[in-house]
């Protein structure tokens, strides 16, 4: 095992607290009825939350570059699938 610097317990607790706050924010934002924007807001907040879990809890931040490249491959794939499917759905 490479001697990695240990992440203090406190950091994780802070992140957890942040995630709970963001959950609250997304619930409140949904009750405000932004109309078209409500889905964008919800997805944006979910993305931030997801990123916090990925980078801190799943330790991606401190992993080698390879892991980040691999993750971006998966996300690009997902994006491509969405975009090209909607090239059909949106113009049908």
């Amino acid at each position, binding site marked *: 095992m490479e001697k990695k610097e240990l*992440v203090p317990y406190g950091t994780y607790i802070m992140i957890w607290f942040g995630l709970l706050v963001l959950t609250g924010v997304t619930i409140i934002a949904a009750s405000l009825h932004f109309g078209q924007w*409500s*889905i964008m807001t919800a997805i944006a907040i979910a993305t931030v939350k997801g990123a916090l879990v990925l980078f801190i809890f*799943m330790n991606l931040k401190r992993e080698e570059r390879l892991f980040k490249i691999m*993750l971006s491959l998966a996300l690009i794939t997902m994006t491509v*699938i969405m975009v090209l499917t*909607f090239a059909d759905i949106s113009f049908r």
Partner: protein
Amino acid sequence: MSTATLHEPHVHVDATGAKIAMWLFLFTELLLFGGLFLAYAVFRTYYPADFHYATTTLSVSIGALNTALLLTSSLTMVLSVAALERLNRRLSVILLGVTALLGILFLVNKYFEWSAKFQHGLYPGSQDLALHPDGEKVFYGLYFTMTGLHGVHVLVGVGVLAVILAMIARRPRRTVSVPLAAPTALALQGDSGPLWHQAADAQLDAVDVTLVYRENEAVAHRQLIKLENAGLYWHLVDVIWIFLFPLLYLIS
């Protein structure tokens, strides 16, 4: 003789390799749910009004509670890893137990949520639902598929955590008897430097203590790889829920 364990052929444990494989597996999970997210996006485009209405029939408070449960379980999960990194087995095991428990609570919650929907006749193939507009039928189809598949993943996760918990809870061997002959001392070179400090003039007790500590660390290291990978899986299940929650419960 128990020294035999120290002479076993060195089995290389490739922590990075295991982690690469785990991440690759997570990508497949991501894309498995990705197909469902795609379906969700497509149907939401087809039936915005029906989705809008159907979303309001789900209980935000139950959804929020479940979100909090999973987020907290992710915290205890990562703390369990952190505890094992510090060789604090006891804390690690306790936190892992709490994680699994929170997962079970999540499922219990889900069970009540599903039962309520079934009582209202809102489930795929029901006669009541057949009277609803198409968009709502599709919404409930998606709702049950997505939360169901996610629930299965939580269940599998709980199982995995239980196995790992049992593994870590088992204490590593406490005593290792070591003959004090000089050649043995030379054989006891570890990966991270000599296992053997001041072997020549150490007391038997002192030597024993060093060895027990080192073995504990080595075992913990191997277990840590498994715990970390189980944690990665658990967190990913959490990430998926982070997206499911607003899409199914909130966007109205």
